[in-house]
C-alpha cells in the first residue's frame, strides 16, 4: 500500500470509529456526576444561585417500598425552561440525570431512579440563565443502591 493511500485509510478508519458518537453534541459531565455531595454536583453543573419556585412540580411517592425503582415526574411551568436536573441529596453520588429540551419538547420528564436512603429529591431548573429548585422528600423503606 502506498503511503498516501495508507494515510487515507487511517483517516477513514478513524472517522468510522467516531460515527456512534456523532449523535451526541454533549460530553458527559463527569465532574457533576461523580460529585458525592449535592452542592458539589450543582457546582459541576454551573449552578450558582438557587431560588425556590412553586412553578416546579415534583411528583414522587411519599414512601418508596423499594429504593431500586422510584418513579419521579418533574414539570416546570417557568417560562423559557431549558433544562431539568434531578438530584438525590443522600445518594453516594447526588446527580441522577440532566435533561436539556429543545424544538417543541415540553419541560417535563418522567424517569425511575435509585435511592439509597430517605432523602430529599431536588429538581433544578435552568431558565433565562437563572436556576430554580423544588424539593420532595421520599422515605425509602428498602435501600436500592445495593
Amino acid at each position, binding site marked *: 500500500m502506498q503511503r498516501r493511500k495508507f494515510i487515507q485509510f487511517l483517516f477513514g478508519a478513524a472517522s468510522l470509529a467516531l460515527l456512534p458518537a456523532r449523535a*451526541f453534541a454533549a460530553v*458527559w*459531565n463527569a465532574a457533576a456526576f461523580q460529585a458525592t455531595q449535592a452542592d458539589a454536583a450543582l457546582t459541576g453543573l454551573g449552578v450558582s444561585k438557587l431560588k425556590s419556585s412553586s412553578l416546579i412540580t415534583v411528583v414522587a411517592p411519599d414512601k418508596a417500598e423499594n429504593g431500586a425503582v422510584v418513579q419521579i*415526574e418533574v414539570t416546570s411551568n417557568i417560562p423559557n425552561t431549558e433544562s431539568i436536573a434531578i438530584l438525590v441529596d443522600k*445518594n*453516594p453520588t447526588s446527580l441522577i440525570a440532566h435533561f436539556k429540551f429543545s424544538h417543541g419538547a*415540553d419541560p417535563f420528564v418522567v424517569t425511575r431512579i*435509585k435511592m439509597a436512603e430517605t432523602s430529599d429529591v431536588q429538581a433544578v431548573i435552568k431558565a433565562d440563565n437563572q436556576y430554580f429548585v423544588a424539593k420532595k422528600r421520599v422515605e425509602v423503606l428498602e435501600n436500592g*443502591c445495593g
Partner: protein
Amino acid sequence: MGVVDMADNMRMRAQLKGEVTEVKVLMTHPMETGRRKNDFGDLIPANFIQLVSASINGEQVLEAQLGTGISKNPYLTFHLRGAKVGDVIKITWVDNLGKTGEGEIAVTAA
C-alpha cells in the same frame, strides 16, 4: 399500533394526544453503579448509559445525561408539541464503555 419492539435493547411508544405527543422509552441496560458486589464478593464494574439523545425527523428535541442513579432498564417519558402522525422519533444512547443502542418509531394517533 401500540408498543413496538424496535430492537432487543429498546421499546418505544409515541402517541399524539390532542396537541401533545407522549413518548415513552424503555431501554434495556444493567445500569451497574460500580459499587455492587457479585456472589464472590468482587465488585461488578460500572456499566451505565451516560448520554441519551431524542430527535424528531432528525431534529434534536431532548438531550439527557444520566448517572448511575437511574434505575436498571432506564425509563423515560417526555412530551413534544407540534408533532404529527407519521413523524419519526429516534432515540440513541451510549454507555460508559462506548456501547450504543438506538430505536425509532413513528407517531401514532392515541
